[in-house]
């Protein structure tokens, strides 16, 4: 199963009771969000609205279909804008 790491630390740890690393059964970004919301109410919404994810090192923003593999490492990070 892919492993999720809360890289942006305590800003989202409020949803996970301090847990910073856990496994999630999901094969796409969308399924990941739904699963996060199911397990940690509020986290999926938070990820969807204001966060980006890095899957095995690559940053994805707003891409539901981004593929997760068994063993994928997923970091949740603040969404990135620019100027």
């Amino acid at each position: 199963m892919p492993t999720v790491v809360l890289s942006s630390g305590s800003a989202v740890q409020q949803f996970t009771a301090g847990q910073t690393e856990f496994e999630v059964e999901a094969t796409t970004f969308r399924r990941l969000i739904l699963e996060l919301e199911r397990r940690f109410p509020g986290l999926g919404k938070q990820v969807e609205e204001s966060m980006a994810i890095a899957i095995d090192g690559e940053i994805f923003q707003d891409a539901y279909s981004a593929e997760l593999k068994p063993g994928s490492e997923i970091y949740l990070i603040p969404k990135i804008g620019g100027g």
Partner: protein
Amino acid sequence: MNYIDSSLKVVGTRPIRPDGVDKVTGRAVFAADTRASGMLWGKVLRSPHAHARIVSIDTTKAAALKGVFAVVSGVDFPEIASEEAFVGEGPMNFRDLSLNCMARDKVLYEGHALAAVAASTQAIADEALALIEVTYEVLPHVIDVEDAMAPGAPVLHADMFTSGVSPKPEKPSNIAKVVTFKKGDVEAGFKEADVIVEGSYTTQPVHQAYIEPHACLASYAPDGQVQIHTSTQGHFMVRAYTAKLLGISMSNIRVNPAEIGGGFGGKTLVYLEPVAVTLSRKSGRSVKMQMTREDVFRASGPTSGAAMTVKIGAKKDGTIVAAQQVLKFQAGAFPGSPIGPGCMCGFAMYDLPNVDVVGYDVVSNRPKVAAYRAPGAPITSFAVESLMDELAIKLGIDALTLREMNAAKNGTKTHYGPVHQNIGFTAVLDAVKSHPHWKSPLKEGHGRGLATGFWFNIGGESSAQVHVNEDGTVTAATGSPDIGGSRASIGMMVAEVLGVPATAVRTIVADTASIGFTFLTGGSRVTFATGMAATQAAEKVVEDLKRRAAQTWDIPVEAVEWKDGMAYPAGSNAGAFEPLDLAALALKAGRTGGPILAEVSVNAQGAGPGFGAHICDVSVDKETGHVKIERYTAIQDVGKAIHPSYVEGQIQGGAAQGIGWALSEEYIYNTKGQMENAGFLDYRVPVASDMPMIEAVLVEVPNPRHPFGARGVGEVPIIPPMAAIANAIRSATGLRMPDLPMSPPKIRAALDAAG
């Protein structure tokens, strides 16, 4: 299709800029140039207080003045629920945005809008503003970020409790959010270190200082249709925000992007548009609004100021084993500083085993901050790159060598999670090493500084259309306002794919009703993401043209090839036909399927991050404290420069803004929390005579995720200048200047203190 290794005829050349004639002859239509029949002038009443409760607003006299058609205040705007959004260039709460456009019960900074009028002339509008009677209960205010965090500081928002800490605080405070990033074990890392350096640094809020103030023209028709002409980096963003803030359906709002006189991130919010639409709805007339330069300073967002501490530990050989940083970013009156990227960018240039970064997003009685080129990165990098210089001095290692030893490479895992891929940082450092500037001896009395910078760059949603006109010329339409040369770069990529000269393609920016959704221009995304959409649209057009040629010759489409802007039979077996060019195919378009066009929308992923390194030589006048930039070289990995002159211009412009940030720009507040230098006479941006020639060196490590290898270039160049200059001043004088701006009074004071 990928063209990175192809022989290119258009991409990489320097055609004359397509917007040049309009701009130098004054024909370009900016938002302030727009007019409408029966148009009224809208003006805003702004708070003279930094923090006050609005006890009452009486608009009776203003409304009664002859020539006044509408007066609005907070009661005319819908109450908006607290809801986070990412429509613009950073996290934004719709309720905060609404309150920022028009205050309700409190004003939170000097310049905060609290009423507006629409009148037949500007003079009458000014007169009406003076007739609005406001009763304030003045409240204590706080300006400085660390003062705002201190116990007992005046609290701006009674319902704001710090998020990101556990347990949830019981009392509200000005700290909106705490974010942390950890990698490895930083305490263990510092125990391994032979040398530890520490420093505290501050930066000031600085304004983007776009030459064109905010302006718009809004018209609310009796059937509810809204037209807005505005100066913005994202007309779809203006549509979304205006719709949300005023409760109007998006389909009833059409936003036309005017030519834009600079943005740099500062035009990724709305200030005037919802107010102008409300005035128009109330008056039944079109309403024009434009800020003065004073309004721009007092009421629109600069970037954050910050207070930071940094600690770095290294082995004697220069290998860094631990790094720690605390950042306190001032957000202005509402939460939303670029603290996230600030925490992520400072150490992103290096391969570090143990990192700990904590960031605070803090509100105070200043205008709400807005994005500014690489938001957060220049601030954090000033601190980190200044301390890297101290580390190099302490270790007795050359500043470049220290960076080479610890440089991030492909495969380096950052402290915030992602792994660097296809990056060109080491190529940039190689270019520093071989550059004549770096190799040249220092002149007597001069000092030399080096600093580096990192920015993510982004992709995102973009739409593009390519039309072949009836005469065979081409129009490319996109939804990206052109703030940095994207009409040129997109037209060139389309021309390259079609095999025609750059001059055969005219690129336009289409309004919100004329093209698919396109995220705003920011994050250095347009040439990458919109360019990807335009390239794919051009490829679809080529496929269609081949099909039409096949139909014309009555041969299979597989027997047609496209080369140099013409369809050819692919080999002798395909038949002997004269090639068909775009004009010939366009002429017969009616017989081969109708108009020739393609539209592609993408959500582009894989934006290649950018790295830069700047070398700066300075001299310091020890009598006046004036710092003169003697020589400046900016080196950057740009992926593939589609139009090298524009890329060099981006780099020079970013460096120039960084030089102002470093040496002269700051907001000066009096004891009442009022800004005392709200104009270009007293808020000192560099002028031409202050500037050296900035040599831009383009390093091209292609981004394999873009068809031509492009990566964003507009933001990286503003990141290194502050530290490069601070390090040069250290080299010239022995003084470490930890507080920006490094203005003559500060240099003089430091020289005096040093004896």
